[in-house]
């Protein structure tokens, strides 16, 4: 077993050293309001780790003053096509809703297609609500929503590779939130890569000049009752952060 672990770790390091896409780590501050939690603030850490040209990992974590702590990890094979790229996401997600003594666990799988200006993704996820005060002998310690449709549509104003961009779209999930498919979340975002090149680089194998610092701003708006056909405002989140690419 130990040998296997060493071999796996070695492969990972080798792949990482030979990867040509930059890693990115982004730290964001967040302010949110919804009619249930009212005002809350917090922080989020995201990392995108390309292992090689065809495989990347995403990890994210968040904590905020509403006493909800969330983590997710996504494995993503990526296939370059003549136009755009196809990707598959497999995600494990866990949210520790300390304020309500509930755990929210999600397993998601989806397929996506990303072009310069448009990205679409569709898939499915299973959501399990668990009681943090569970009793091993009780039948009601968890509740399963076995099937939800996962979807995301993003439209970019500029090509994906542009050093700055505006984007908007609709989805029922983010890195740190999985809503049931009748509760869409609308988002608007922007990023700007500061013109500091190759300040630090982890490998000479990285392609081209890398702008190492990215400012990122995102706003998420969640209505409620859209598919009740009685929509009203439910909540909003604004995030601002700085990313490092290396």
């Amino acid at each position: 077993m130990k040998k296997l672990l060493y071999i796996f770790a070695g492969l990972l390091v080798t792949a990482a050293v030979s990867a040509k896409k930059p890693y990115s780590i982004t730290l964001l501050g967040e302010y949110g309001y919804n009619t249930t939690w009212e005002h809350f603030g917090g922080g989020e850490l995201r990392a995108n780790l390309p292992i090689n040209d065809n495989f990347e990992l995403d990890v994210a974590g968040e904590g905020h003053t509403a006493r909800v702590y969330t983590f997710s990890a996504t494995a993503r094979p990526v296939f370059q096509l003549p136009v755009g790229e196809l990707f598959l996401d497999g995600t494990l997600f866990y949210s520790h809703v300390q304020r309500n003594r509930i755990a929210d666990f999600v397993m998601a799988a989806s397929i996506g297609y990303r072009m310069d200006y448009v990205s679409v993704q569709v898939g499915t996820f299973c959501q399990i609500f668990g009681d943090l005060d569970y009793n091993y002998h009780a039948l009601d310690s968890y509740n399963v929503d076995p099937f939800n449709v996962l979807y995301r549509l993003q439209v970019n104003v500029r090509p994906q590779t542009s050093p700055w961009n505006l984007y908007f779209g609709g989805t029922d999930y983010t890195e740190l939130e999985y809503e049931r498919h009748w509760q869409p979340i609308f988002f608007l975002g922007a990023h700007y890569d500061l013109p500091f090149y190759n300040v630090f680089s982890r490998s000479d194998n990285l392609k081209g000049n890398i702008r190492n610092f990215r400012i990122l701003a995102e706003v998420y708006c969640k209505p409620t009752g859209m598919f009740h056909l009685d929509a009203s405002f439910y909540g909003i989140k604004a995030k601002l952060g700085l990313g490092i690419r290396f």
Partner: protein
Amino acid sequence: MKKLYIFSLIALTLAACTPGNLDILGMFYTRSEGADQRFEQSMQYNDQHGYCTITVPQDEYHVYIASDTHVDFTTLNLDTFVTDYLADATAAPFCLHLGDFINSVGHYDTCYAHLSRIWNGTGDTCFCTVGNHDIYYDQWQVWRSFFQTSSYWFVVQTPAHKDLYICIDTGDGTMGSKQRKWLEALLSEQSQLGYRHIIAFTHTHIFKMDASQGHTSNMALEETYELCDLFSRYGVDLVLQGHSHARNISPFKDVQYVRVDALEDHYYNAFYTIMHVGKEYGWTFVPVGPQDEDKFEVYAPGVPHL
């Protein structure tokens, strides 16, 4: 040309849907008052008229429950429910309707005329909550003119026990902020008073566990977590819901979540529900309308067929 064709198709589809069964514009913004406004107006009524206590002669009683009648032009199933309820001398002197009285525009007069047999001279009453169809096309005020309030509570007093029933307005898929605070304060206060059962009833279902709910939406997850926690923390042991048109009984955090069937005319699986309240709960689901064979479905051992 292609874009024009697609645009025209979408516009025609939307136009065909509005007005009619579906308030498509409501996908973007509800035309009725929002949850907070509806709650305030319900509280105005409650402040003037108070909260009632229903006396039931036995510690075990059964309650007739209807939901999702979606009255358009006919009230066949609703009439069956009312007739069966009034004919059952052993039923509690109240019943429940969990919302979606009507289907789309109008028909409140028709629905109320048939439902009001319950009130007329029998001494019985029907406690109601609002559904999403009830407030389509800005009809909350119309609903309110018939049923007055959608956020309230009442007590059922038996010889040896008392049960608390709480009505929560989730007609547009949210409790809203004010109702949530009211609910927490109410549960915090009332849970100390030694009720045998605390039962909440509302229209929108809390969980989405099977394909029957594929076409019906829930509340936002933050609100779902909050409600589950409130119910569990303050000893609510049963939550009755409609909306999905298919029954389900599922426990979570020591609370039973029961969705009941629809009673809509021309609906393949139309049922009304009889809830047996005693030390435990029992359920009888009574088929209404055309069925392949008459059958009663009972979800509790020892509960007699009717």
